[in-house]
């Protein structure tokens, strides 16, 4: 019996989740619409003065991105749990942590990446100079990746609960604080013409750490939730 290798099983899982995401594009579009709405509300509510907005841009972009990413997290395992495919995943004979990693990657592609792609547009509307746009994109790309990896643990832990979304935010947000601090700081530094490589490198190392360790915790949490 030719067992599938773990790498190709991960690829299959990734393709499967992306295909499912595209068939539910309304759910996928939710975070990016939320992100765009929040960031465009700020100029209206605060002041149309670009100089003032620029001072807040880093924080606004990051808080909006954080909350938007949190919106989609709840659905990461919920449907699979409800229709029984999660059980089949647990019994597929493939390393669960790697399958969880593939699911997290698909989730990021469907909900984090669109956010990163529209972020330059939102940044410009907040008065961020063109020279800082690359930092905006990089910091949000790293940040949403960290959130997808951390959020998967929370999503797996709160799977069996009826109103788990509140608990999910309480679990994930404190863990995401370091990323928020350094991410917003990176954008701020870039806006003021300073080199932002310090906080960006810190974010990158946080991403490496979470992507390596979080899938193991997610797998353990999934086994508990499936009981």
């Amino acid at each position, binding site marked *: 019996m030719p067992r*599938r290798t773990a790498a190709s099983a991960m690829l299959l899982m990734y393709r499967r989740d992306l295909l499912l995401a595209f068939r539910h594009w309304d759910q996928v579009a939710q975070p990016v619409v939320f992100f765009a709405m929040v960031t465009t509300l700020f100029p209206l509510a605060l002041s149309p003065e670009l100089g003032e907005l620029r001072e807040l841009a880093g924080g606004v972009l990051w808080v909006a991105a954080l909350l938007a990413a949190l919106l989609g997290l709840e659905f990461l395992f919920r449907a699979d749990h409800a229709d029984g495919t999660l059980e089949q995943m647990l019994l597929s004979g493939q390393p669960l942590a790697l399958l969880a990693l593939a699911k997290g990657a698909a989730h990021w592609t469907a909900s984090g990446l669109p956010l990163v792609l529209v972020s330059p547009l939102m940044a410009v509307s907040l008065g961020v100079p063109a020279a800082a746009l690359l930092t905006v994109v990089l910091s949000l790309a790293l940040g949403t990746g960290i959130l997808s990896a951390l959020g998967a643990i929370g999503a797996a832990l709160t799977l069996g609960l009826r109103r788990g979304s509140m608990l999910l935010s309480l679990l994930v947000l404190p863990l995401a604080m370091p990323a928020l601090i350094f991410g917003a700081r990176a954008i701020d530094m870039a806006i003021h013409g300073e080199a932002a490589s310090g906080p960006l490198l810190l974010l990158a190392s946080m991403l490496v750490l979470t992507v390596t360790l979080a899938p193991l915790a997610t797998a353990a949490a999934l086994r508990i939730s499936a009981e």
Partner: protein
Amino acid sequence: MQAHGFHGISARDLQLWRGERHVLRGLSVEAASGDCVHLAGPNGSGKTTLLRVLAGLLTPEEGGVSWRGQPIAADRDGYAATISYLGHSDGLKPDFTACENLAFECGLRRRLEAGDIDRVLAQVGLAGAREQAARSLSAGQRRRLAMARVILSRASIWLLDEPFTNLDADGVQMLAGVVAGHLDAGGAALIASHQPPVIPGHPARRVELA
């Protein structure tokens, strides 16, 4: 073909509590190559719980399931690859077609060859529903599709929870034939159901849950 590298499983003195309820009280079950075991008992007697313990989804408080003479926790992934579990829910994605469901859910376990899916769909009587989304299938058709997944897994131990639910007379006969073929090839099947399963040529051994 399924008998390749087959080893029986045995569960000894299983004790399991669910909250306040003592569901499994010192139960022992075993199945070797060619065995058909019928798990019988009234509603709520723990048939599903027992199957989930045997599948490794639930860990009992005492006792354990062993396979190849070792506890299943020693090689969880290896054990999972030799069993196939048909649960209460069919484990199908409503948005996927019958073909996609098999390709993705079964493809995780092993590489499928060309024609594998068409062959098994014809076997369970769903050849015409290949491109139909699972959400538009009837309950009986979904059960057949879930059974197709079990067949396609080529696992040697089948754990079937009420496999006859929603099947018409034709479907019951088809399923009995499929299970008989699996047992002939040296596999084992543990079936939880209210009616004793009638498998041609293979009298089922009855295990009563109180």
